[in-house]
Structures are given as C-alpha cells and as structure tokens.
C-alpha cells in the first residue's frame, strides 16, 4: 500500500499571501476572536459606563456656600481664584508693607524673629485627635513665611520674588508661587538673625542671605518676565492654615485652625529710585481665612518693623488645607477603579476561557509560535481596553467638569500637556492593567483565581493606603511598589514640597510622580509578560 501513487495533489484553496507576515495574521485572528464574543464587548461597555457614572455623578459635590449671609448653591458659590503667572491656580494672601521701586534697585533687611499663633480651632469634635489648643497658642508651622519681597503689583496672582524665613524650613527664595530654592537652614531668632537681600536688575531678581550682614551668599537668580518698570518692594508675612491629621483605623480626623505669623524685621535698607516717601501696609487678597477680621497689620518704630499676616503665597492644592471649594479633573476619574474590575475580568477571561475549553490547543495548532499568540492577545486586549477607556475618560472629563462648575466648584486649571497626560495616561494605564491581567491569566490559567489575584493586587494596596490600615509611610510604600502605582498618572495638580497640603491618595495625590508610577506599572507588566512567555513556551498545552 505504501507504494500507492496518489493522485495529483489539490491546489491550495488560497495562494500564500505575499508580504503578510505571520504576526499580522495572528493579531487579526485574535482580534476576530475578541470581538466575536459579545460578553467581552459588554464587559468593556459595563466598565466604561461604571466609570462615567461614578466619576461624574458621585465624585464631586458642593453642598452650598454663604454669600453675605445668604445660603447659596451652584455657580453663585464659584470662588474667585487668582491665577499665577504659570497658569496655575494660586493662593495669594499676605500682609505687605511696601514702597514702589522704579527701575533697578534692592532691598536688604535683618530678620530676628518669626512667631506663629493659632487663631481658633475648627474641625469636628472627634474623640480621636482632640482639639488643637486655644487661640493665641504658639505653634510651629513649617511653612509660615516672613521676609522681603519684590512683586509686579499687589494684585493677587502677580509675579514676584521673595527672600523669606520659614517656621521650620530655613531661609528660602521663592518666586512665582511654584519656585522654591533653599537658603540658610535653621530657625530664625534674635540670637540667630538672618540678613536677606533682593536685587532687581531689569527682569532678573537675585536673592542673597547672610548670617552677619557682611558675608553674603547668593541663593538664586530668577527671571520674572515682563516685570513693569515700577514695581512694589517691601516686607511681608503670611501664615497658612494649621492642619493636623490624626490617622486612625478606618479614616482620618482633620483638625484645622487659621493662624497668624509675625515677622520681626529691622535694618531695612533700600537702594534705587523709591518715589513714595513712606511705607504703607496692605492686606493683599484680604484674609482668606475665616476668623477675626483685620488680623494682618504692621508696626513700625524707626527702622524696626513687626509685620503680621495670614494666608499663603503658594500654588493652590486641593484637600483639607485648601480654603476654596476646588475640584481637580482627576477627581472625575475615580470610576477608573470600577472600570478596572470589569476590564480585568474581560482580559482574564479572554485568556482563561481558552484553557477551560481546550481551545488553546486549536489556537496553538493554528499559530505554533506561542510568543506571537501571547503578544497578539496582549496587544488586542490592551488596545481594546485603551480605546474604550479613552472614550470613557473623555466622557468623564467633559461631563464631570461641566457638573463641577454647575455645582460651584472651582476646577483647578492644568496645562494642556498635563491634561493630555491625564486623559491618555489613564486610558493607557487601564490598557496596561488589562495586559497585566492577560499575563497573569496565562500564568495561572484559572479564571476565578486569576481575576481575584489581578483585582486584589491592584485594588488592595490602594484600599490599605486610603483607609489607613497601615501607617502612612507603609501605605505609601505599598502604593509605590504595587501595580496600583500606575494610578499616579491621573494626578493632575502637582504637589509642591513647599505647600502644606495633605497629599493623600484620597485627594488625588500619589507617593510617586505620574511617570514614575506609570513606570512601576510597566515594570510589573514586563515581568508578568516575561514569566507568562516562558511558561507558555515551556508548558504542554
């Protein structure tokens, strides 16, 4: 029988397509597989709908506000928030004792004291934490500020540069709200005075400090673009809200109190053309804090001044320290968690269903190069999730921001670049998490365990961090190391070290910067991918 001559072999039904490389075919096959199971498309849709629902309808709500004693809601509550030279929302409240300066010139002063006192106590009377203390009690406020300043004007949001002493962060040169350069360390006192100097030359301002008035150290030189010829120059003090967060299991208790800071300044010397003969005080922005009016002021005796102010000169960060009802665009994306659960289920099932039914054998018989199958599955799942995620994010932001504004919340402005990063980054993060799920599924092969593993690995670090199971430091490390670090890409308002805000995940802040968090997620995906690849190649199907 072996010698039987077979008839002419049949011509193949389809000629070998030229130029169509193997991977393109497998990618197409996996995409066909994905979109022909309605349950998976529904799963993606459910995730997107949940994301929009939670993000838009649950995320932000403003109860209302008091305007001249009248209870108001909605846009009437929209606060007026100054915008700094960089386009970011800022806080700009301080007491300023100034003169005007035309053309180039300088100011030099000696600072001999900086004292901060509580103005009152607010916050719930919670058994955990307790009250802060009586009004007038002295406290150390790390970022209380007092010193000398050159500013374009006394309008809020104006360009400025300042040399200042802080409660516990030493001497700094700060400019245009976000700039911060460290100068001499240590607390200022009568025994340890600090000499500060600012020199204006055209658009550039240089800051110096000194411990004796003779040896000067350059702290920094900054350019304040389009500084008018006549500017304001003088002494200032300001004092952020004192906030104490008491973490306890299941939440955090926040006690806050307005404060005032008094700077003692003497030996003030000016050079240059200063047309105004005498000093005048101005409460820039008024006191932003509730409490007794006119808490700002100054006292002059010859060349010696005491300046008392309240408020802050800093970028506005959302959270309990902020006195303005704000919202961030990222807050509208909280539904990403819910979406993620649906996306992880779809991604896992896309892989595990093959194992459950033995379909993986058909797949690998059709595409024996197993690496290509894994790559195609990862790409199809990742891109599909990315696309659906992107649409959901755009819905969340357009609907959410409009709703925030209707409710009278000030939506903190972000640069277009940051906005694109938040939008595309969130979608990409969701896509990567789906790829991670596919890889875990290829490793574990059982859907229930895979999905639990995927969701728990992503969600639990977050949960432990936000509900304060672990001390903040441990919680932060969990969020640095877990795949959940990728959520950092959603952070829209940068956190500045010189701002005393509570930068917790609940407020949209993450322990890692956006791209670093994203990189951590990428590392997870890469590691899981490699392990999945090795196992898929090595194991019998």
């Amino acid at each position, binding site marked *: 029988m072996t010698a039987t001559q077979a008839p002419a072999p049949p011509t193949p039904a389809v000629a070998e397509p030229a130029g169509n490389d193997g991977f393109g075919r497998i990618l197409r096959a996996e995409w066909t597989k994905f979109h022909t199971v309605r349950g998976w498309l529904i799963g993606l849709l459910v995730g997107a709908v949940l994301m929009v629902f939670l993000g838009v309808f649950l*995320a932000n709500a403003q109860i209302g506000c008091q305007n001249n004693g009248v209870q108001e809601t909605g846009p009437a509550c929209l606060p007026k928030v100054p915008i700094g030279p960089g386009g970011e929302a800022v806080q700009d409240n301080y007491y300023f004792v100034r003169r005007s300066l035309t053309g180039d010139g300088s100011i030099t002063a000696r600072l001999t004291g900086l004292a901060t006192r509580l103005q009152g106590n607010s916050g719930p009377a919670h058994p955990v934490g307790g009250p802060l203390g009586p009004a007038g009690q002295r406290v150390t406020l790390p970022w209380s500020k007092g010193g000398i300043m050159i500013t374009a004007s006394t309008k809020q949001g104006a360009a400025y540069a300042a040399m200042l002493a802080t409660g516990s962060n030493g001497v700094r040169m700060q400019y245009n709200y976000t700039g911060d350069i460290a100068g001499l360390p240590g607390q200022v006192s009568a025994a340890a005075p600090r000499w500060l100097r600012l020199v204006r030359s055209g658009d550039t301002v240089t800051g110096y400090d000194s411990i004796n008035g003779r040896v000067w150290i350059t702290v920094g030189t900054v350019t304040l673009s389009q500084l008018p010829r006549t500017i304001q120059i003088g002494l200032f003090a300001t004092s952020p809200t004192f906030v104490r967060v008491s973490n306890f299991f299941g939440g955090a208790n926040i006690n806050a109190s307005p404060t005032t800071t008094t700077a003692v300044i003497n030996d003030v010397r000016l050079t240059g053309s200063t047309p105004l003969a005498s000093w005048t005080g101005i409460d820039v922005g008024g006191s932003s804090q509730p409490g007794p009016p006119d808490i700002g002021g100054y006292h002059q005796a010859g060349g010696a001044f005491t300046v008392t102010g309240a408020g802050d000169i800093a970028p506005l960060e959302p959270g309990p320290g902020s006195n303005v009802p704000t919202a961030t665009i990222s807050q509208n994306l909280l539904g990403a968690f819910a979406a993620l659960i649906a996306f992880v289920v779809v991604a896992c099932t896309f892989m595990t269903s093959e194992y459950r039914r033995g379909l993986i054998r058909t797949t690998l018989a059709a595409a024996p190069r197993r690496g290509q199958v894994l790559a195609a599955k990862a790409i199809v799942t990742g891109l599909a999730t990315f696309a659906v995620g992107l649409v959901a994010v755009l819905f969340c932001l357009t609907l959410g921001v409009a709703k925030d504004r209707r409710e009278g919340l000030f939506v903190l402005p972000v640069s277009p670049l940051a906005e694109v990063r938040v939008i595309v980054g969130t979608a990409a993060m969701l896509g990567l998490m789906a790829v991670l799920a596919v890889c875990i599924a290829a490793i574990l092969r059982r859907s229930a365990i895979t999905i639990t593993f995927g969701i728990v690995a992503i969600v639990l670090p977050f949960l432990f961090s936000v509900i304060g199971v672990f001390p903040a430091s441990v919680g932060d490390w969990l969020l640095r190391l877990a795949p959940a670090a990728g959520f950092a890409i959603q952070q829209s308002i940068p956190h500045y070290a010189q701002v005393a805000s509570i930068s917790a995940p609940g407020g949209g802040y993450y322990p890692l910067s956006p791209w670093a968090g994203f990189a951590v997620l990428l590392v997870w995906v890469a590691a899981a991918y490699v392990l999945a690849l090795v196992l898929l190649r090595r194991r019998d199907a």
Partner: protein
Amino acid sequence: MSHAAATRPARLPGTRGREGGLSFGLDVLRAEWTKLRTVSGPAWLLIATVALTIAVSAAAAAATSCPARTVCPVDTIKLSLTGIQLGQAVVAILAVLMISNEYSTGLIKLTFAAEPRRWAVLAAKALLLTAGVLVAGVLAVGGSVLAGHLILASHGFTTARGFPDLSLTSGVAVRPAVGSVLYLALIALLSLGVAAIIRDSGAAIGIVLGLLYLSPIVVNFVSSTTWQHRIDRYTPTSAGLAIQATKGLKHLPISPWGGLGVLALWAAAALLAGAVTLSLRDA
C-alpha cells in the same frame, strides 16, 4: 433493585423518604459534602484563607507602633483583624467556584439529575460552605487576634496606656472577633448567591470583588457627605466591617450589629435570587 430501594430509608435516619416533598434531604447534603471533600481545591482555599488573614493581620500589627508619650488613636482590635480584608477574597473564590466549576464542566447537569430540587442543592452547598468558612474563620480570626495580642503589646499598645486587652477572655475583643467570623461566612453566602445568578466564574468573581472592594475606595473619593453616608451604611463591606470597631462607636455611620445585619440582608437577597434563577433557568 427493589431490594435496594427498600433499604434506603433505613440507612438515613432522620429523613422521611423521598415523598416528603419539601423536606430537606440529608442525602443531598451528603452528596455535596462528598463532592467538596474529594477535590483538593476547597481545602487549600480554606487553608489559604486562614494563612493570608493571619499574615496580613500580623503585618498590619507589626507596621504600627505607638511611641511613648504620644497619643495613638488606634483601634487595636480592628487593626489586628485587618487580614479579613484579604481573607474575604479567598472565601469569595471558594464560594464562587462551588457553583461555577460545576457549570463550566457540565457537572451541574448531573447534580440536578441527582437532585431535581435545585434550591435544595443550593441550600446544601450554602450549609457546607458556611460550616467550612466558620471553621476557617475561627482559626483565621483567632490567629489574627493572637498575633495582634503578641505584637501590639510590644509596640507600645499596652493595657497600662489604656489600650484594650486583646486576649479573647477580656470581653472587649469578643464582639469584633465573633462578628468577623460571621462576616466571612456572610461574604461567602453572598458570593455563593451571586455565583448562582451569574454562573460564569470570571464574571461572578468580578462582581463579588467589585461589591467587596469598590465601596471602601469610592467612599474615600466621594466628596458628597450624603453619598459617603449612604455607602458606609448600605454596602456589604463598609457596613459589615462596622462589627470590628471598638472605638468611636457613637460616630460610626451604622451600629456594629446593624452593619452586620445589612450584610446579612445582602447575603439573603443574593441567595434567594440565586435559588430563584437556578430553579427557573435551564441548567
């Protein structure tokens, strides 16, 4: 075969025979028990529940300390029961797989052929699941409290400083401990009910984990206090875990037993819906 049939009632004391209609047959319970113990998965999942719960609880206790002369607003009992947050996920897997595995292999057809009263199958599974999870839960919670007792005392949380005695004989820890065991059992029943409705293991476990983990995260991001309050009071985990609190009880959104009651309602509703869908739908 008539010989065999005649011997049957005699073998099962306590049942009144097959004609009893709604009487809950011990044989379906026995069949489910045989099914459960003859595969290794459920036993491993229960062991994992105990191990992971204790491990996370001990880690939480080890990471927390109260230095001298500071105020530490820590609910030490709740802290030492942290592992329940992870243990519940393993319990949920166990519960979901008890049903969805049968659907994915087609075994469910045989199960329903052997016991046509489908609610009885679900009830038998629920009973066995509850028993298994209660045993695992007692071990998990006991181990967690013991770990907390041993670790926290050396981290500054001493009775001399007003922290409660974590030994179970002291009384303070009894309600949270017993409640946590019941919590795990109720989470298992809730998951079982969801699995009976959804059948597919992937979708079922996704929904269960969403129910378990979404609410405590969302509540941290929602700024509306009305919604915070609603989520805290009416979602399974947020309400159910109120049973663990021993501090600030007056400020809890829901009372400890009330919260566990909310979870029990969730579980009962899921089981009921599961029994109805099992009975109405083709296997």
